[in-house]
C-alpha cells in the first residue's frame, strides 16, 4: 500500500531524482562553519512565521501601532513569546548573516566558479539590514521613532539626491503615518519578496556548484 502510494508520487514528482540530486549529493568534508548559511535560512523562515503571526494583531498606524504591540505583549496568549522570538531573531539574523559573509570571505569561497553566489549573497546581506531597519520602526516607541529619524537623516545626506531619498523613505519631509505605512509595506512585502527570490537563486547556485572545500596549501 505505502509502496504503491510512493511509486505513484515518485512517477509524478520524481522523488528518487530529488533524493539522488539534492540529498545524496557528494560534498567536500565540512565542519561547523558550514552551517551558517542554513542557520541564516532557518532564521529567515522563523522570522517569517513569527512575523505572520504578529500581523494578526499589529496595526500599522501611529494611533494604534504602540497599543497593538502592547496588546500582543499583554493580552494575546504567548504573544510575548512570538514577539520575543521575532525581536531577538532579528538581532541574531544580522549577526549570523554577517559571520556567514566573513566565513566565505576568509576561505575565499567567492572565487571561481562562485562569483555570482557572492554577489547574490551581498544582496541578501543588504536586504537583511533593510529588514532590520524597517522592522525597528514598527513598534512606534520612542527608541524606534528617533532611531528612524537619525537613520533616514543619514540617508538624506547624499549629495544632490539626498532630499529625494529622504522624501521617498519618509513619505514626506517628516516622519509620519505615511512613513510607518511604507516601512510596514517594505518590511512584510517588498523586502521578504526580495529575500525569498535572492535566496532561491543563492540555493540553486550552491546546489549547482556544490559547497566549496576548505582551502589547503594546494589552493
Amino acid at each position, binding site marked *: 500500500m505505502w509502496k504503491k502510494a510512493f511509486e505513484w508520487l515518485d512517477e509524478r514528482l520524481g522523488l528518487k531524482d530529488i533524493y539522488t540530486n539534492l540529498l545524496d549529493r557528494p560534498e567536500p568534508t565540512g565542519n561547523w562553519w*558550514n552551517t551558517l548559511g542554513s542557520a541564516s535560512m532557518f532564521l529567515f523562515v522563523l522570522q517569517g512565521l513569527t512575523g505572520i503571526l504578529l500581523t494578526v494583531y499589529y496595526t500599522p498606524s501611529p494611533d494604534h501601532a504602540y497599543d497593538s504591540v502592547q496588546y500582543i505583549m499583554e493580552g494575546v496568549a504567548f504573544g*510575548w513569546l512570538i514577539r520575543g522570538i521575532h525581536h*531577538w531573531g532579528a538581532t541574531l539574523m544580522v549577526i549570523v548573516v554577517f559571520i556567514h559573509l566573513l566565513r566565505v*570571505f576568509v576561505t*575565499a569561497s567567492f572565487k571561481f566558479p562562485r562569483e555570482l553566489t557572492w*554577489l547574490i549573497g551581498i544582496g541578501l546581506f543588504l536586504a537583511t539590514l533593510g529588514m532590520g531597519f524597517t522592522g525597528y520602526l514598527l513598534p*512606534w516607541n520612542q527608541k524606534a521613532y528617533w*532611531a528612524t529619524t537619525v*537613520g533616514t537623516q543619514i540617508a538624506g545626506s547624499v549629495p544632490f539626491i539626498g532630499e529625494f531619498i529622504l522624501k521617498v523613505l519618509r513619505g514626506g519631509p517628516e516622519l509620519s503615518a505615511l512613513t510607518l505605512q511604507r516601512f510596514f509595506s517594505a518590511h512584510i512585502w517588498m523586502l521578504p519578496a526580495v529575500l525569498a527570490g535572492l535566496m532561491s537563486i543563492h540555493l540553486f547556485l550552491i546546489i549547482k556548484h556544490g559547497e*566549496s572545500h576548505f582551502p589547503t596549501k594546494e589552493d
Partner: protein
Amino acid sequence: MNDETKKKINERYERELNKGEHFWPDSIFKDLVVSLGIFILLIVLATFVGISPEAKADPSDTSYIPRPEWYFLFLFKFLALYGQIPLLGKIEWIATVAIPGIAIGVLTLLPFIDKSPNRYYGKRVLPISIMAIMVTGIVLLTLLSEVPTVSEDGSKLLGILQAIAGLAIPVITMILLFLMSFVFKHTTTRVMVWTTSLAAVSMILVSGTALALRPKPVVEEIEIAVTLVDQIFAGQDLYSIHCTECHGDDGSVAEIKGVEGLEGEKITPINSHDVLYTITDSAMYEVIAYGRPNAGMTPFGKAYGGELTKSEIDYIVVYMRYMWDDRFEIPAEALKPLFPPLADGEVPSYEVHIQPIVKRYCVSCHREGKTNNKYLMTSYEEILTTGDNVASNIIAGDENSSLLQVIQEHEIMNPEKPDEVLIGVMPPNRALKPNIVDVFIRWIMNGMPQTAIDAAALFVAPTPEATATP
C-alpha cells in the same frame, strides 16, 4: 582567468568531492543541530531577557537622545569621530555616503577585484588582514558608542583616544599593508601578520583605555506602565497631580473653587455620562494635550508646552475610562485602597498613609509653581517646614493646628483683620472623607512619625474594655 586554470580548479574540487561526505545525512545533521540550538537560544532570550518596555513615540519630545539600531551604532560612532577631523570633518557626506558606499562597493565587487585563483590563507594575507582590521574596528566602535567625544569638563582626551583607536590606527595599518604588498614586495607574510596583530591589539588597548576613562553613564529610570493595572495607577497619580486642582479628585467638580484666575468658572463634570459617552479616547487625549485655552484649560501635552508625554496622557485617559465610565470594568487589583485602614490605637506614618493621601488630594496645588501660600507638600520635610503660616500649621499634639482645622471645614481667619480669611477650607472643592481626616488627626496628635517603624513604636494597644464596647 584562462580555461586551464578553470579546469585545474574543477579537477581539484572533484578530488575533494571523492574523499568528502554526503549532504544527507552528514551536513544536514550539523545544520539541524545548529538550527535547533538557535531556536532554543531564542526561546531562552524571549523568556528570560524579554524586550525592555519603551514609551510611545513622541515627536515633540526633543530631549530624547536618538540612537540608531545596534548594528548601525558603529557607523554612528564613526560619523562622530570623523566629524572631529579639522576641515574634512565638515563635509558630512564623505563619512555618511562616500566611505560606506565605497566599502560596500568593494565588498560586492570582491570576486572581480581579487581575481587570482589563490584561495589558501597564506596567499591572501592582504585581504584577510584588511578585513581583520575592519571587523576589529567595527566591533570596537560599537562598544565605544556610549562614550562621549567631549567630557563634561571640556576635555577632549576621550575623543582623541577614540579617534586613535577607531580612525588613526586602522587607516595607518591599512596603508602600511598596501605598501608591503605592492611597494616593498619582499615583505614576508610573517611581517604582515605581525603588523595586523599589533595594530588590532593596540586598537583594543586604546579603546579599553577610553572605556575605562568614560564617565559613568547616567541611567535614567523611566517608568513605563505595561499592564492595564499599572497604567491605571500611573494615570491616577498623574491625574492627582495635574487635574485634581480644577476637576477634583473624582472629576465631579462643576464649579471651580480655589484656583487663581478660574474662581467660580462653570465646567462640565468630567466624570459625567455626557462627557464619557460622547468623547472618544483620542478626543479626550487631544483635550488634555491641547487644553481648552478659551475655557481656561492650559495645554498639558509637551507638544503644546505642557509637561506630559504622550504615554502619560494615554495613562490619564485609561484611568478616567476605567474609573468612571460604567461601560468599562475596572480590574479588581486596580481598586486597592489608598492606604491600609487603621486599627484602634494605631498611629499612621508619613510613608504608608500620609504620602499617598497627600499625593492624591493636595499636591496638585501644593507644589512648585502654584498659588498655595508657599506651602509645598511633595516631601515629608516640605509638609512640616514650608508655607507662609508654617508656625501654626502643624503642631505636634495640637488639635488646633491650622491643617487639621481647614480639612475639617473650619476656615482660619486672619488674626489682625477678623473678617479676612487667611486659609480657606481644604481641599477647596470637596471635603475629605472622615477616615482620611482621621488619619491626619492621629498623625499630628502623635507627633508626625515619618516611617512605618517610628509609627509602630507609638502604637498603643487598646484596652480590652475599650474594644469590648460595640
